[in-house]
């Protein structure tokens, strides 16, 4: 039996390093060397764990984070909005805005965070989701502070901006950014005050080109709040959840006057929007379909609960109330983060 028999790259979890493999092979052939190597590893690990700084984060409390990793897209947008952009070292897989993120390294997202990569970047703050308990535990063991970004209602967004600002020592900038968002939102609410409130169905997912597996916004969460702010009643507002599957029967029974669909596919064209609207022809009795008030919005701006909710609020107001909303139209449905999509009726 030769020393290399049965060994291949990465066997036994050693990793592809050739030097490591050679060690392993030698270890297999001669037991005493293997024992020494294992002992050396243990000692090395023990030493590393004791080292101050380096692998661990900053120890001194009160020190403001300077190297931030954020895998929550809404938090990333907030960071850039409050002036912490230059401090962001890496972002998650799904960040698209602002354009600066395209140049930053990606470290995974909700289901697949790349812990090794995050650790290798030596951050002093990592923004994560509340449900990522494993990741939080691992970062905690490595001594890296974690900021858990949660979002729920519209108010939580501006509260989150202020909180993050305080944490980063940018309280003033955060305050002005948050106040601006609140001001713009209030302006939208004011401009539609007194206008009749249509019943609106806010679709956040369904099978492409077919009316199957329709997911809508329930009566909880920032999308519902935006709809309410833009002067409409959520057709599924009585459901106490952020999202729910809407059966055909339920949609027919609730008779929405307007249907707004949100898609975050950035590469869609007008033709795609037309084809998606066509699917609703299966329910001609629904007032929204009958009156041509089915709208399809593409873009990440509409689904990220961050500072750009203002754009969403304006888009909703424009779609719901037309010119009476007082919001000028500009741009097309598929230009992300840009102007407000035009009202295009279903023929």
């Amino acid at each position, binding site marked *: 039996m030769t020393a290399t028999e049965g060994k291949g790259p990465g066997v036994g979890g050693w990793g592809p390093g050739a030097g490591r493999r050679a060690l392993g092979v030698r270890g297999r052939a001669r037991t005493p060397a293997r024992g020494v190597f294992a002992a050396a590893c243990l000692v090395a690990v023990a030493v590393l764990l004791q080292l101050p700084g380096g692998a661990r984060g900053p120890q001194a409390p009160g020190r403001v984070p300077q190297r931030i990793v954020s895998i929550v897209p809404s938090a990333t947008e907030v960071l850039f909005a409050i002036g912490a952009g230059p401090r962001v070292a890496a972002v998650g*897989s*799904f960040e698209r805005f602002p354009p600066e993120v395209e140049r930053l390294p990606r470290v995974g*997202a*909700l*289901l*697949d965070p790349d812990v090794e990569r995050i650790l290798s970047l030596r951050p002093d703050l990592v923004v994560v989701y509340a449900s990522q308990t494993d990741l939080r535990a691992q970062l905690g063991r490595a001594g890296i502070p974690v900021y858990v970004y949660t979002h729920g209602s519209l108010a939580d967004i501006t509260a989150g901006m202020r909180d993050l600002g305080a944490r980063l020592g940018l309280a003033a900038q955060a305050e002005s950014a948050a106040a601006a968002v609140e001001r713009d939102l209030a302006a939208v609410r004011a401009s539609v005050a007194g206008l009749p409130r249509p019943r609106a169905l806010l679709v*956040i*997912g369904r*099978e*492409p*080109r*077919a*009316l*199957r*597996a329709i*997911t809508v916004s329930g009566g909880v969460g920032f999308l519902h709040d935006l709809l309410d702010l833009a002067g409409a009643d959520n057709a599924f507002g009585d*459901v106490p959840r952020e999202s*729910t*599957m809407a*059966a*055909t*029967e*339920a949609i*027919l*029974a609730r*008779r929405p006057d307007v249907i707004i669909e949100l898609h975050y*596919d950035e590469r869609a064209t007008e033709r*795609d929007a037309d*084809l*998606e609207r066509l699917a609703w022809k*299966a*329910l*001609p*009795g629904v007032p929204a379909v*009958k009156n041509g008030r089915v709208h399809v919005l593409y873009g990440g701006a509409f689904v990220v609960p961050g500072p750009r909710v203002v754009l969403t609020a304006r888009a909703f107001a424009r779609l719901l109330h037309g010119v009476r909303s007082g919001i000028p139209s500009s741009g097309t449905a598929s230009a992300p983060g840009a102007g407000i999509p035009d009202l295009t009726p279903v023929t």
Partner: protein
Amino acid sequence: MTDVRRRLAAAVAAFGALAAAAVLAAPLAGSTPIRLDRVFDRSVPFADNVDAQIFFIARLPRALAGALVGASLAAAGVVFQALLRNPLATPFTLGVSAGSALGAMLAITLRLHLSLWGVSAVTAASFAGAVCAVAIVYGMARARHSGFSTNVLLLAGVTLNAFFSALILFVQYVADSAEALRTVRWLMGNLDVAGYRPILAALPLCALSFAAFAWLPRALNLLSLDADAAASRGIDVLRAQRVAFFSASMATGAAVSLGGPIGFIGIIVPHLVRLIVGADHRVTLPASALFGAAFLVGADVAARTVMAPVELPVGIITALVGGPFFLWLLVRAR
């Protein structure tokens, strides 16, 4: 009248009535109360008649889809159990459903935005996945034998099932959370077809399968004894096995493409029917198809009403009924 003639007539009459009653009664039940007199009120234009819309657009297609899917899966279950000579076989044993599921997952995750003749990409991809699975399993069963080894078929099917299931998990993992959730939902089954088009798309395939099913029962009786016993009584064993395999797989593929992989129908219904009418496939096959239709329509009504206004996925109801039933079967057999 001989025994089998009598039993066939009685079974078709009884289960047929049950299926018809289920399809006619199901559209009356649901989370929104509707009134039959308003449904058929001609004086109100259809576009304004919500009760009629709910009845004809939402619920009736749903009942018909349930009947078609239930009948297909139950009949396919009977055929597979005879073909594999194993009462524990299901339409999903040989990997057809896993292939369907993989096709649907890929369509959802890759966001294939197309539709053919009103059939969505997910449905079409799901059926394509079923066809691939069938081709692979059949190819493997024929690879080394000039005949058709049901043992190899079973092993190939089970292996393919495991492999495709792993691929499905992988696709779910790389999908983002919204798509992953959608795939999970798809796997639970959904009969809310919103219109007759998806049913019409599945109908030709189901019709072809059922035509083959009409020819099979005698062959199935003999195949379930022994391949040699069948051959010595004049059955072309290879042809019968092929017809059984392809027709049952096609029915399963069509059913899964229409309503998702709804489990347990392919095993509960054949067992219950056998308990009532005996094992002769000439009676069991048509009776299972009819009872399967009634069963799934009933399960769908339960799914829509037990936690109204929230609708449960129908696959959960069939699993909740199927699991305990299975345990009872095992305990009873002792």
